[in-house]
């Protein structure tokens, strides 16, 4: 690595500003947040006046909080749907687009469109779509028209279905994002491999099975991690569409953290939830990487 004719000190000097900003904006806040999670603190009085309570916040969170575990469950539900439905679907569409269209960019851009729309716009749009028929809700009106009245729901206010209604919107919005990533990945697979395979008699889906899928694993991993972390953090869409309601039925971990910190004014407790979220992201990401590294080794 001695190709560059600059000293390590020079490199350090150039990296340092960025590093300081990065540490200051990412690691320090996480540390501070972990520290405040040890206090019973309302976020308004100086921290020095707050009561130090050790790990009581965590103890309450894990054992005495009726909202917390269902919120965790819903967060993983979100991640599960995203990884098991959204990503394979994106991959399938990416493969089909790559194979059957000449000018794929237009299609990919169209799928990508919802990603660049503001979440608030998307949320309001889908709220209207989900509305009861009496208020012009599209889905319910269509169901009514085709004689499926018994299928109509108050999609966003029935505690049993509300979370799924929100998940669908999230899947829809970010399908294009993962499609773009995976489509690019497929395009980067050299064409001569396919040609060689064709001569050997591997064509169509057989080629996908033995060439596309193994070669796209590293890219798929990116999609996977991004979608998982995105799911854990999901907040804005739920805030806009249901506000976590009715009665916590659509609360996820990030919502719970927000509610506790700012509405219930239990800042220390909210920090504990936030710290849990960071830890969970860390653990799962390491886990995903481990699994994918195994997969990559197997196929390479």
């Amino acid at each position, binding site marked *: 690595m001695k190709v560059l004719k600059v000293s390590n000190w020079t490199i350090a000097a150039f990296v340092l500003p960025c590093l300081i900003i990065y540490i200051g904006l*990412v*690691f*320090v806040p*996480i540390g*501070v*947040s972990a520290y*405040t999670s040890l206090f019973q*603190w*309302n*976020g*308004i*009085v*100086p*921290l*020095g006046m707050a009561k130090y309570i050790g790990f009581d916040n965590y103890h309450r969170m894990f054992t005495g909080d009726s909202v917390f575990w269902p919120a965790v469950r819903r967060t993983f539900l*979100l991640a599960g749907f*995203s990884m098991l439905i*959204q990503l394979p679907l994106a991959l399938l569409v990416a493969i089909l687009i790559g194979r059957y269209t000449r000018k794929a960019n237009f299609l990919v851009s169209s799928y990508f469109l919802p990603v660049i729309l503001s979440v608030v716009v998307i949320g309001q749009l889908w709220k209207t779509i989900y*509305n*009861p028929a*009496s208020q012009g809700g599209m889905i319910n009106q269509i169901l009514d028209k085709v004689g499926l009245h018994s299928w109509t729901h*108050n999609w*966003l*206010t*029935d505690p049993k279905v509300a979370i799924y209604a929100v998940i669908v919107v999230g*899947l829809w*919005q*970010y399908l294009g994002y993962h499609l773009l990533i995976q489509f690019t990945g497929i395009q980067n697979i050299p064409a001569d491999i396919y040609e060689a395979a064709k001569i050997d008699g591997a064509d169509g889906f057989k080629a996908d099975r033995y060439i596309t899928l193994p070669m796209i694993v590293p890219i798929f991993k*990116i999609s996977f*991690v*991004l*979608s998982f*972390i*995105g*799911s854990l*953090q*999901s907040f804005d869409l739920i805030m806009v*569409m*249901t*506000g976590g309601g*009715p*009665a916590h*039925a659509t609360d996820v971990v*990030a919502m719970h*953290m*927000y509610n506790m*910190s700012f509405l219930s*004014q239990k*800042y220390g407790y*909210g*920090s504990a*939830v*936030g*710290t849990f*979220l*960071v830890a969970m*992201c*860390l653990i799962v*990401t390491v886990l995903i*990487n481990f699994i994918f590294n195994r997969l990559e080794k197997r196929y390479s």
Partner: protein
Amino acid sequence: MKPVDNLKGVNELTNGKKVLGVVTAAGLLAASLSACGSSDNNNNKNASGSEPASSAPASSAAASQSSGEKVTITFQNIYPDSSDPKYQMLHKIVSDYETAHPNVHIELDSLNTDQQKLKLKTQAASKEVPDITIVNPKAQMQPFVDADLFAPLNDMVQQNGLADTFQTGILDPYTFNGNLYALPDGNNIAILYYNKELFQQAGIANPPSTFEELIADVKTLKAKGITPLAIGEKDSWTGSFLFMNILLRTYGPGFLQDVTDGKTTFEDPAFLEAVQAFEDLVKAGAFQDGATSFDYNAGENLFKTGKSAMYFMGSWATGGIETSDVSKDANVGVFKFPTVNGKGDPNQYMLAPGSAFAVSKNSKHLTETLDFLNYFMLNYPKELFGLKGAVGLAQKVEGDFKAAGYSDMSITVMDLFTSVNGGDLSFDNTMNPATSQVHLSSIQNLFVKPDTDPSAVAKEHQQAYEDNKQ
């Protein structure tokens, strides 16, 4: 689902090992929400001294005028809507004051109510409270007072006779240990608005005066395909406000105070009765479909566009309803919240002392800020009266409303004020925030599960109260 918009993270991921970057980026949301409190309280002492420009913060307003020292006062407020009379009033008074005091510049930070509440909390955590800000009465401003963030207004309110312009007793919810910390922008009561034409269509002659009549009317309206009561229950305080009015009838005033004093608990029969009555109302089909996904504005709009027959809200809604289409031809009437099971006094109201102006104790220009706020409050009722926004003020208003062109509905509302015979404050103004949040979601739950056992609701409340009392 929502991917991290962090391409640097993507590159790191492809390298396999350096996952930390993405993970920490993921945690950024968590951290940024919780880190606002990271700044220590050193600023507390430095705030007035560290800035060389403000070397003489204690100089009198007159002195600073003559010296011509440039002064900027930040005025955080909740009047961002330019069609609102209060917006026009605010800008008029500020520009008048700036003309009279050329060295003073008032910087307006106009936000929606919820945004302002959130912003103030984060500002308070880092001790950067604006010179003038907005707080809500009693329990909601208590933590800020405990943190010693506000300057007492006891002396200022005596200047130029400002204290005498306020109604008797209205300053009490803003007074702690004998110190007045904020001046309210209004004083409202909860009432029911109704659409006369829709009532006629359903064949209902008079607005209900008992809860049983209300339920019967709800059923009649519902049968005609009319939404009986509009509500914006996504903002869960709206349902709580209505529920507390039922409780005010079944128990009488002071329930929450009695709970705090240990005289009763949430398992009081009157509380159970109120929950039951509320559930009956939901089960009768009183509210629009999907009520819990309507925010405050969307709920109110149902009534304003003539899509619902009744609307329960604080009298602050009067101005907006009056200027909407539905109140053409004196179509909107108002009535008092009915008795419940024959109990309660209709002249006892849910009282809503308004949002209030407080002054930061650490303001660099405390004297000038107090002087401006004094001027502002003195002119507040006069300017609003001219703009037809003077219904439900905390101050006495001089002038003939009828002659000034106020509608019959507005005048009826003002007549109701004269009938007030005590009442109660809303839940979140009385109880600590943590208990209030449990209450709000518990009531919201009744909208989707009206079969919940009232005693379970009571238990949930009692548990939350005991967990969170200090």
